[in-house]
C-alpha cells in the first residue's frame, strides 16, 4: 500500500522543491556563515586533549591547595576569639569556567553547552566534565533577543526604499549574519511577487554576508528596496 503512493508523492515533492522552494544559492549562504565564524575563531567547541585536561586539573589542584593554605595561615594569625573579617569575599578558584570568555550576563548563551561544574576536589572519583576550548561562541541573536522597528523610508528612481532596525534587547552580546528573510504582502495579506532577493540593490550597496556583533542595546540597520510599479 505504501509503495503505491511513492511515485505520486515523489513527483509532487519534486515539483514543489523545484518551483516554490528552489532556494538558489542556499549552500553558499549557509557555508559562508560557518566560514565566517571559523575565521573569527568562534563557535568551535573542541574537546581538549588529554594533556590539556591533566594540566588543567593540576592547575586547579595547585590553586585550590594554595587557597586552603592561605586560609589556614589566616586562621592561625587571627586573634583567638576575634571576629574574622567577612567583608572580603573569598576568591573563587579558577575552574574551567574561568577560561571561557563568555560575556558577563545573567542569561547564558543558548549556544553554549552545559557549563562545566565547579571542579571537584577528587577528580578521580568524579566524572570529568566535557571540557571546551576557550574560543566560545558569542551566540547568534534569537528572535526573542531582538526588537524590530521600521526605520526611515524614501522613494526615488522608481524604487521604494525602507529600512528596518534590529535592536539587541538582551543583556548579552549576540550576532547577526547575512540577510533577514523578508516577504512583501499586499493589503489582503497575499504575497507580492517576485520574492525578494537577498543582496544589494537600489540604494543599498551589495555587501557580502558577514557577521555583525550587537552589544546590549545596540542596533543594526537593514534596508529593503522594491521597484515601484510603472
Amino acid at each position: 500500500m505504501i509503495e503505491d503512493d511513492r511515485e505520486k508523492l515523489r513527483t509532487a515533492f519534486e515539483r514543489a522543491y523545484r518551483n516554490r522552494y528552489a532556494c538558489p544559492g542556499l549552500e553558499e549562504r549557509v557555508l559562508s556563515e560557518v566560514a565566517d565564524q571559523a575565521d573569527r575563531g568562534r563557535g568551535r567547541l573542541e574537546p581538549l586533549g588529554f594533556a590539556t585536561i591533566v594540566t588543567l586539573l593540576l592547575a586547579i589542584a595547585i590553586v585550590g591547595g594554595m587557597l586552603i593554605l592561605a586560609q589556614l595561615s589566616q586562621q592561625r594569625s587571627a586573634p583567638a576569639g576575634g571576629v574574622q573579617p567577612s567583608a572580603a569575599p573569598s576568591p573563587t578558584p579558577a575552574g574551567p569556567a574561568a577560561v571561557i570568555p563568555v560575556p558577563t550576563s545573567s542569561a547564558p548563551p543558548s549556544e553554549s553547552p552545559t557549563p562545566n561544574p565547579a571542579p571537584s576536589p577528587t577528580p578521580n572519583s568524579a566524572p570529568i566534565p566535557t571540557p571546551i576550548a576557550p574560543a566560545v561562541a558569542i551566540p547568534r541573536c534569537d528572535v526573542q533577543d531582538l526588537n524590530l522597528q521600521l526605520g526611515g523610508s524614501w522613494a526615488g528612481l522608481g524604487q521604494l526604499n525602507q529600512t528596518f532596525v534590529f535592536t539587541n534587547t538582551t543583556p548579552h552580546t549576540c550576532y547577526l549574519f547575512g540577510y533577514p528573510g523578508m516577504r512583501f504582502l499586499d493589503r489582503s495579506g497575499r504575497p507580492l511577487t517576485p520574492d525578494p532577493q537577498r543582496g544589494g540593490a537600489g540604494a543599498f550597496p551589495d555587501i557580502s554576508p558577514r557577521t555583525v556583533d550587537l552589544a546590549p542595546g545596540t542596533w543594526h540597520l537593514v534596508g529593503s528596496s522594491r521597484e515601484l510599479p510603472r
Partner: protein
Amino acid sequence: MDFVASRTDDLIRQAATGDQLAFKGLVRPHLRPAFQLAVTMLGEPEAAEDAVQEATLKAWRHLHRLRAGTSFRSWFLTVVANQCRSERRTAWWRVLRGLERLDTPQATGPEVLDWDLEQALLSLSMDERAAVFLRFYEDLPLQELARIQGISVSGTHSRIRRALERMRLRIDLEVDR
C-alpha cells in the same frame, strides 16, 4: 560504496580537528536535503533556511559528538529536525502561522497538485510530514528514519501509515477525481 564511506570517515576526522574545508565537503551534499526536510516541516522557506543555517553551525561546533560508525547524514538530519522543532516553539513562529497559506492558487494544473499536496501535508503533524518526506522523497530506510525521528522502527512504520491514510483522504479525493 566502501570508497565513499571511507572518504566520508576521512572528512569527518579532518573536520573534527577544525578543518573547515573538510567540513564543507562533508556537509555540502546534505544541505539541500536538509533544507527540503526543514521546509517540509516548517512550511516557510525563510524559516527553513534559518533552521538549516543554525543546524549547520551546531554540526560544526559539535562534530566531535558524532560517534564512530554513525552515519553523518542521519546525524545531520537529526540536528536539522531538532532545530525545526525548536524553531516551531518560538513565539515568532506563531506570528508567522497567522500569515501563511493565504495564497490559494487560482490556476489549474500542476500548481493545484502542489497546493493539494501542501494542504495534505499541512494536515499532518510536523513529525509526520518529516517522516513522509524522508521515506518517500529521500528514500531512507526505516531504521535510519527511526534514528532521525528518535522513535522505534515499528513506531516509524505506524507513523507513516497513519500519515498516508490521512493524506489520502485529501489527495485522492482532490487529485484522482
